[in-house]
């Protein structure tokens, strides 16, 4: 549903390059790499937010619906939690159901300022899930959560994946267990050259086609 030919992307220096990435329905991908290696940058490119790169990004027809959970919560501070979800949800019930699932039904009427960071991130997760996308981009979705909450949130994502098996997922995570659980193919950033993206094909070769 999405094809990316990334020749080069960089700011002052070259950051990413020589990457051919094809994401098809049902693919699961996990981006792994050291801090500052360009994971978020790649996600931005995939998500279509960053167009300042050398290369091409092609979308299937009909265009896939993309949901992106950012690394920061990025909630609208002047809207309550519920209103923030309603920006994306089709109806009120869906918003409340999702809030229930991320265990924040009590906080529906609060403003983001009144949430802890972990709570705000869960709202952001709920918002990404609310869109019922064809391609889900999650940038470190489980960070800032205690292990048991993190597990429950992961299960929530799994549940959605089971419910919509055709949904593709790109996950950034520093926790290899998360990727394992979802059965995602690891996409390891080369830490030595700092620029080339290498597929870690040992795990699962079935999902996704990566051409370097």
């Amino acid at each position, binding site marked *: 549903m999405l094809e990316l030919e990334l020749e080069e992307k960089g700011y002052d220096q070259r950051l990413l390059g020589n990457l051919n990435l094809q994401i098809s329905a049902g693919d699961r991908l996990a981006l792994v790499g050291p801090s500052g290696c360009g994971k978020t940058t790649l996600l931005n490119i995939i998500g279509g937010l960053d167009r300042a790169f050398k290369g091409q990004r092609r979308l299937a027809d009909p265009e896939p619906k993309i949901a992106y959970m950012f690394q920061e919560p990025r909630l*609208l501070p002047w*809207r309550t939690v519920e209103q923030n979800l309603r920006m994306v949800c089709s109806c009120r019930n869906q918003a409340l159901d999702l809030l229930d699932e991320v265990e924040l039904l009590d906080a529906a009427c609060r403003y983001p300022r009144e949430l802890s960071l972990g709570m705000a991130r869960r709202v952001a997760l709920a*918002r990404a899930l609310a869109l019922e996308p064809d391609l889900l981009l999650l940038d470190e979705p489980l960070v800032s959560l205690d292990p048991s909450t993190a597990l429950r949130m992961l299960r929530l994502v799994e549940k959605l994946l089971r419910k919509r098996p055709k949904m593709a997922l790109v996950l950034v995570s520093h926790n290899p267990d998360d990727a394992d659980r979802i059965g995602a193919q690891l996409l390891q950033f080369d830490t030595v050259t700092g620029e080339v993206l290498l597929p870690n094909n040992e795990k699962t070769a079935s999902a996704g086609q990566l051409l370097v």
Partner: protein
Amino acid sequence: MSSRLRDYLAVTAGLVCIWQLAATLIADPMLPGPVAVFQSIVTEWRSGALLHHLGVTLRRVTIAFVCAMILGTLLGWVMGRSLRANRLLDPLLLLFLNLPALVVIILLYVWMGLVEAAAVLAVIVNKVPNVAATIREGARSLDPQLEEMAEAYRFTRWQRIRDLWLPQLFPYLMASMRTGLALIWKIVLVVELLGRSDGVGFQLHLAFQLFDVTSILAYSFSFIAIVQLIEWGVLQPLEKRARRWQGEMQHA
């Protein structure tokens, strides 16, 4: 709210007392006391003149205010968001920002005649650049992260306006509404002075020629009272609502 009202009354009463004291001490017809001014307001009110002129001026102020805010916000928005538009329009903005009110008023009156439309248009032309210059700064200071978020979630145009842009522009809008109302009313005074036969500006100038400071203050304070009502009835509730998300301390 009740403690606010109390505060307000206390401050106002204090001011009036100081004023009365000063007026009594100086005892100069150029500094009439609050009693004299109040009496003048009552007289003008009874004669119907106050209401008439105030009404006329208010109508002009309202029309000009609404038009100038809308146009100025749009213009400032475009200039703040698009580098290209800013480059093209910046010389024009600076020109109109600094063109003396007098020039605009004269030219419009001469071209269009001393008609109501010319008067209101002159005010709008004077005010739009001010609003635009303020809103432009706001449009340049938007949060790019939220912008990206709205992009990613494909917010509709309307959602962007209502939920993304307006809240961020809000302080700039408030600033330009508050200073704008004041500026517009000041320009309306000049406009009325130069080419209208009614309105507070006309009356103020007549009073000025007779050096009737009491009437000048009577008309000025009547208008200020109206602005105070707008402040209480519209602007402060609006501000309170719009700043609720910031918590208690912020909305004053």
